[in-house]
């Protein structure tokens, strides 16, 4: 059974949609409440490598893509999560599962203002200490 089938079997109904843009580019969406379990399954059980996470702002939501790489086959899995609450966005941190996510969660926190619940060291990574609080450079509308 290949990795794709294992993911579908284990996560089942938690997968909101599944999309394969090409054999090596697999995107699937889960609810934000399920991200901890999903990341743990991909990283710990399937042994995928965490490549990075991409955070971005959409008109209706904040979106994070967690990119995992299967270095045996070249398949690249991107787990999509939408956070609708743009006023107080929050999601579970995956840093407790593996420490490699620590920096990128700090970066998304300071750039987009998404709070990572359970992050052990949520402080600024790139921005200056005197950068005003509550201003998030990658939000298109700073005052929102």
């Amino acid at each position, binding site marked *: 059974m290949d990795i794709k089938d294992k993911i579908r079997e284990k996560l089942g109904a938690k997968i909101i949609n599944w999309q394969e843009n090409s054999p090596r580019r697999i995107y699937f969406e889960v609810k934000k409440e399920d991200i901890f379990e999903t990341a743990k399954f991909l990283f710990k059980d399937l042994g995928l490598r965490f490549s990075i996470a991409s955070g971005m702002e959409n008109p209706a939501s904040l979106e994070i893509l967690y990119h995992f790489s299967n*270095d045996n086959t070249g398949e690249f899995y991107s787990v999509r999560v939408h956070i609708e609450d743009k006023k107080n966005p929050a999601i579970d941190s995956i840093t407790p599962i*593996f420490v*490699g996510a620590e920096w990128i969660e700090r970066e998304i926190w300071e750039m987009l203002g998404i709070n990572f619940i359970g992050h052990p060291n949520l402080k600024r990574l*790139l921005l200056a200490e005197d950068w005003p609080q509550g201003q998030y450079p990658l939000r298109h509308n700073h005052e929102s």
Partner: protein
Amino acid sequence: MSHKVIVPIGPYHPLQEEPEFFQLYVDGERVVDIDIIIGYNHRGIEQLAETKHFDQVAFLVERICGICSSSHPYAYVLAVEDILGGEREVVPERALYIRTIIDELQRLHSHLLWLGLAGHFIGYNTVWMWAWKYREPVLDCFEMITGNRQNYAMFKIGGVRRDIKDEDIPVLKKALDELVPAIEMFRGAVMDDPVIKMRLKEAGTLTKQQAIDWCVVGPTARASGINIDIRRDEPYGVTDRVNWSVIIENDGDVFAKTIVRILEMNESVHIIRQCLEKMPKGKIDADIKDVPPGEGIGRVEAPRGECFHYIRSDGTNRPVRLKIRAPSFMNVASDKVAAVGGTISDAALTLAAVDPCYCCTARLAVIDKPSNKKIMNGWDLVKLSQEKTEKLKQGLSDTGK
């Protein structure tokens, strides 16, 4: 806690002269903790990319880094071509070969640059001079092909901007022929010299499990026994049409990282030679006009590891979002485990062993050194490191008597 001393390194790294700030907490000779502070050169390139049209972004991302200045544009054009259906679908044959040649030439110059700095750092200034001497012909090749020693402006969506002329090929081949004995010399110098071996062995070890947990990439991961290389795992250019091998070492120390980089140079030479033989004639550019809506990912094995670009297009001429992750972003964080537990004279070497590249992030600032703390600056650490090598040399010659 009372006798703990804080040693600040940076914001300029003693080895790389790039802006980063390490705060080492030491107890006697031993490093007990480390704080890594980056961001001194943060230029907001991701956001800036949203204001440029697709063609301009290739030039913009090229300026992220002056050493791996083909990795970022390559990863970027791969990401855009991912939306268009994939590199192989879009890019003409000849351009694929030219892309791989440029990418491997860049690896040669980058690894030689690192080797020279590492040599200087442990007090082997001859290695430094020689490595940089042999790096120079590689840069000359770049100048001949692209017109520039750095920032080659070769990559564009759907192809490359300049062709490799027939009369350039013998010059390139000759430069490679002359480089091979030099790489062999460096390999011998590092593997056979007892002092270098003693100095680099078991310094700054990153175990395989640590490498997995910190998600490190490139030579840093391969030196810890992790078998990854994007050139093989997700071939781009013509990396699957030429013979070469992935170099793996298992010890995870600075010695292993050095060996991986030196042996990889041989593979790069091997790849370029085959490309020059096999390269067909033909177009070098597919002349792409529009980028359809969609999202794409491009990955390139930069000299330091996987370079990642994610792009989203809404059908206009500008990207909606460009996410960039340089390999050092993952590798530098792992210094936290590699340096802790080692001695302070190894610290600077360990921090440099991942070949850190911070061009991706930082603003310039003056850090107030805590006045009540004992201060060592970067140069003190280099001296400390060089003294340790001298002592080892001394010890060896004493036992020889």
